[in-house]
C-alpha cells in the first residue's frame, strides 16, 4: 500500500516512515498535495501547535486538497496527535483557528480539577475501547500507547469515539468515522502495539 506522509514541516516524519515500512507498507513523504492521487491512504502526522499546523498546511496548499481527496473522494486518512486535532473544526491552541473540518468538534487544552495532574500528558497510558472499531481491531482491551500532548479533541458526535483514556478525567484517544481515523497517541512510537494500529490502517487502505 502506497501511503503518503504529509510533510508540512511539523513533526517526526522519519519515525512514521520507518514504522510503516516495518508494517509492510510503502510509505513516501511528500510536500506536494498533487501526490495524493498516487496514494492508497494518507497519514497526517504532527507535533506542534494547532494554529501553526493549520498555517503550514494552508501555505503549502494541503487544506483544500485534503478536503477534496479525503472529504469528497474518500481517500483514507490517519491523523496522529496534532494530525488528529487538525481533522476537527476548530482549535484553541495558539489562537482560535479553523481546522480541516473532517470530524465535527473542537480541540481544547486538557483540563482537570485535579491539581496534582502534570501537563503535558507524557507517557504510556491505556486505551479503553468504545464500541466497534476497525482501527483498534486485534488490540487487546486496556493496551498501553505512548501519548505526548497538552490538548485534546472533543468530538460533537459521540459515535466517532472508539477509544478513551483517563488522565485526571477521561478524554478521547481514538476517533473513527468511515475512512477517517485519528489517534491521540503515537502508534509509530508505541512499540508492537502501535504497529498493530498501523497494520489495521494499511489493511483498511487495501480492503476498505
Amino acid at each position: 500500500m502506497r501511503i503518503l506522509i504529509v510533510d508540512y514541516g511539523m513533526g517526526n516524519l522519519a519515525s512514521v516512515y520507518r514504522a510503516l515500512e516495518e508494517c509492510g507498507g510503502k510509505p513516501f513523504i511528500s510536500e506536494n498535495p498533487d501526490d495524493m492521487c498516487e496514494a492508497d491512504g494518507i497519514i497526517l502526522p504532527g507535533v506542534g501547535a494547532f494554529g501553526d499546523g493549520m498555517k503550514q498546511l494552508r501555505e503549502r496548499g494541503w487544506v483544500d486538497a485534503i478536503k477534496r481527496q479525503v472529504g469528497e473522494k474518500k481517500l483514507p486518512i490517519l491523523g496522529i496527535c496534532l494530525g488528529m486535532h487538525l481533522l476537527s473544526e476548530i482549535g484553541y491552541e495558539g489562537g482560535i483557528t479553523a481546522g480541516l473540518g473532517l470530524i465535527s468538534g473542537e480541540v481544547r487544552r486538557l483540563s482537570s480539577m485535579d491539581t496534582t495532574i502534570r501537563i503535558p500528558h507524557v507517557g504510556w497510558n491505556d486505551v479503553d475501547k468504545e464500541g466497534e472499531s476497525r482501527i483498534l481491531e486485534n488490540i487487546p482491551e486496556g493496551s498501553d500507547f505512548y501519548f505526548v500532548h497538552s490538548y485534546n479533541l472533543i468530538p460533537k458526535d459521540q459515535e466517532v469515539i472508539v477509544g478513551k483514556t483517563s488522565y485526571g478525567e477521561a478524554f478521547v484517544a481514538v476517533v473513527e468515522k468511515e475512512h477517517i481515523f485519528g489517534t491521540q497517541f503515537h502508534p509509530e512510537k508505541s512499540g508492537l502495539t502501535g504497529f498493530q494500529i498501523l497494520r489495521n490502517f494499511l489493511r483498511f487502505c487495501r480492503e476498505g
Partner: protein
Amino acid sequence: MLKVRIIPTLLWKTSGLVKGVGFDSWRRIGTVMPAIKVYNTRQVDELILLDIAATPDGMEPNYDLIAEFSSECFVPLTVGGGIKNIEHIKKILRAGADKVCLNSIAYENPNLITEASDKFGAQCIVVSIDARKGANGSYECFSECGTRPTGQEVGNWAEKMEKAGAGEILITSIERDGTMQGYDIDLIRQVTDKVRIPVIASGGAGTYEHIYEALAKGKASAVAAASIFQFTQQTPLEIKKYLGDKGIPVRNINAKL
C-alpha cells in the same frame, strides 16, 4: 492511568557508548546501535541518547548518526548534546528524534526554550539540569557536562524553565551519577515540588528499591538510568514487575502482538 516510565540513558562520545562516575572517568562500554536494537526488542518505555562530547568540543549535533539510531527505535527517543539554536532542534527532530534535550544553552540563552516550545510544542522540549549539592545544603546547577557552575539554585531554575516553556525536566545528580548508590531524593523533590510538568529523575540507580524511592518519595514521573542496565543483570522488565507488585502503575507489554 498514566504509567511511570523506565528510561535507559545512552551516553555517547564520538560514536562509542560510554558511562562514567560523577560525570568523570568515562569508560567505553560498546557501540550505540546494538544497544538501541536490544532496548527496542525489549520494548523499553523510552530512550534518552546524549552526546556528551558535543558541547565541550564545540561540535554541532551529528544528524546522520541520530538518523541512523532513530531508524531502529520504535519507542520515544530524546536526543541531546551540542544543541545551540532552533535550526539544530529542527534538524534533530527531522532526523527522527521525538524530543530534544537542552542543557548548557538554556543558561546562555533561556529565550531559546520559549522559542523552541512555541515552534515545536512544549511536549518535545526537555530541559536537562545537572546539579550538585553546595556547602550550604542547597543545590546548584552546573552546565557543560557538570564542569561549569552557573550560580542557579535548582528549584528556581526548574521553575524558570517551566515558565519558559519546557515540557519536561530531566534532573541529574552529578554526585550520584554512576555510583549506583541511589537517587538523591532531596534533589528530586526540590524539582517535583516546584514544577507541574513531568520530571525524570536521573543519577544513582543501582537497585529496584532505588527506582521505587525516586517514584514514590521523589514524586518523579519517570526514572532514567544507565549503569544499572549496563553493569548489572537487572532489566527494565524486571524493574517493572517489582514496581507493579508495589502498586506503582507500569506499562503492560502485549506479548501476543
